[in-house]
């Protein structure tokens, strides 16, 4: 029960968190003074399975007919000291659930690959090397240098497909679209496919690493021609030996215009809004102090593609929206609600000249929309009963009954 609540709460926090990336390690080095941090060995380009470690086939792989490259873990090149320390970090910075105990001294090099993990544009492919370290409990940890990594619990066939002990883990590097994906598989996953929004797909090479790892690793740099809404990477799918899809990771493809990005309103306020909201052109339709002293405001701005975007705050909350003209056409003449703190917000259609707020006490207030919006502080203990839209001739054209007190 608590886990479910925890997950729900986590999902809510994830939704309000700012997902944009602002990492700049060089800035930290500059602030700290010159500190030599990590030495990375130059490597030839493209996915190169560490040649010395590729064996014809290793025992575990043979057992289920592994079709791809196989690396004998203990014959693979040991990780350099600086990389071994990465795994020490996993031990120290374990996300959840207790110590992971990556066996730092046993970290081995698996392969190198070129992909874009840091610019998120897909245009700055750099070399990354995969290192894997076993864990004392039978799991493993892995890291792609200068990119990302993770840990997997001991394989548990009864675990969910993509849980910590599951058979399939995939992640991706993402700007407007996914620029690369990497992950691991365990028996019985046989094949991994990258599937695109246009219905095409490509099978990804998997490099199997023998015991004690007993897992296959893949990485795929999404080609530039698959960096548009219509053909971006949409899912990463695991298939069994029969070619049946067993697990799917949904990457999700959104129009870049609908992605939230940090924007600045004309008064200097920083706020995350969809890219299609033209924040620089925003106008403040409402701005007033509520009786509790909070600032209430509403900004409206042009929407790329037509329509209007808005953002408002009442001191006790607020909201934002970017409805398309089509979405707007489906809304009633008044689409509003009262907020905590006694502020009424509504988005109204152009034919609405006056919004009449009728309270349970019999009191009535009339508010004139500005740019299609109303933001109004109601009287104390308002008990709003009905909202009526009036035309410019005073004719009631829509009535919205509100919840009672």
């Amino acid at each position, binding site marked *: 029960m608590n886990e479910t609540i925890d997950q729900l709460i986590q999902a809510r926090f994830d939704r*309000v968190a700012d997902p944009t990336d602002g990492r700049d390690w060089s800035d930290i080095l500059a602030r700290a003074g010159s500190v030599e941090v990590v030495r990375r060995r130059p490597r030839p380009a493209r996915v190169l399975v560490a040649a010395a470690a590729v064996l014809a086939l290793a025992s575990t792989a043979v057992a289920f007919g592994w079709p791809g490259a196989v690396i004998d873990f203990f014959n693979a090149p040991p990780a350099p000291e600086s990389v071994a320390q*990465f795994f020490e*970090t996993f031990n120290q910075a374990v996300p959840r659930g207790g110590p992971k105990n990556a066996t730092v001294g046993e970290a081995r090099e698996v392969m190198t690959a070129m992909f874009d993990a840091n610019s998120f544009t897909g245009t700055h492919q750099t070399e990354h090397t995969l290192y894997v370290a076993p864990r004392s409990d039978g799991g493993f940890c892995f890291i792609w240098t200068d990119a990302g990594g993770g840990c997997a619990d001991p394989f548990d066939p009864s675990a969910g497909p993509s849980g910590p002990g599951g058979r399939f883990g995939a992640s991706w590097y993402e700007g407007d679209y996914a620029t690369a994906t990497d992950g691991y598989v365990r028996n019985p996953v046989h094949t991994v496919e990258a599937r695109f929004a246009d219905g095409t797909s490509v099978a990804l090479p998997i490099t199997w690493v023998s015991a004690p790892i007993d897992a296959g690793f893949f990485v795929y740099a999404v080609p530039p021609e698959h960096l548009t809404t219509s053909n971006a990477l949409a899912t990463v799918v695991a298939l069994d030996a029969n070619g049946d899809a067993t697990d799917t990771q949904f990457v999700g493809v959104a129009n870049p215009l609908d992605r939230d990005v940090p924007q600045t309103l004309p008064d200097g306020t920083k706020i995350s809004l969809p890219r299609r909201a033209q924040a620089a052109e925003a106008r403040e339709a409402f701005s007033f102090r509520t009786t509790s002293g909070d600032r209430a405001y509403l900004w409206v701005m042009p929407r790329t593609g037509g329509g209007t975007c808005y953002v408002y705050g009442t001191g006790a*909350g607020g909201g934002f929206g970017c409805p398309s003209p089509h979405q707007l056409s489906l809304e009633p003449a008044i689409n509003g609600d009262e907020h905590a703190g006694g502020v009424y917000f509504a988005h109204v259609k152009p034919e609405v000249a006056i919004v009449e707020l009728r309270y349970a006490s019999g009191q009535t207030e009339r508010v004139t929309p500005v740019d299609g919006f109303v933001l109004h502080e109601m009287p104390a203990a308002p008990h709003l009963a009905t909202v009526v839209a009036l035309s410019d001739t005073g004719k009631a054209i829509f009535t919205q009954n509100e919840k009672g007190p």
Partner: protein
Amino acid sequence: MESTAAAIEVLYRHRYTRFRNGVAPIVGSYEAAHDAVQEGFARALRASGQYGGRGSLEGWVWRVVLRTALEQRRKDADDLPLEELDLSFVEPERDLALTDAVRSLPPQRRLVVFLRYFADLPYRTIAEALEIDTGTVAATLAQARDALAVILDEEGVRL
């Protein structure tokens, strides 16, 4: 020295966003949070020789970053201790119910909640970062979770 510095780098590369989002409620904006995280990591890097391996590296870096954020906040606001700061979401309009639920918590509990759910920190690291008992963290989160669950329930979310 170098190995700790390397570990700090990988911690930064993996968890920058969580650091920034976790610090944002203290300093009031994501921009200021970025600056606090950058400065905090720079300080941690300079002082990496002082990390003696007691407790997790992440907990130690969090302490440095939180201290940096608090200093930044004090430049602009009252000289309040961390546990008395009025922490809230940078963009409350993103989720009004969640904002209300978090604001219903005492200020000293909110940071624990932010570190848990924004920074995704385990109890132990939260305890290390705030220099409080793990049991206190667990109790605080249990109370916070109950309060948040009530709000979600009132919204009709099935629990």
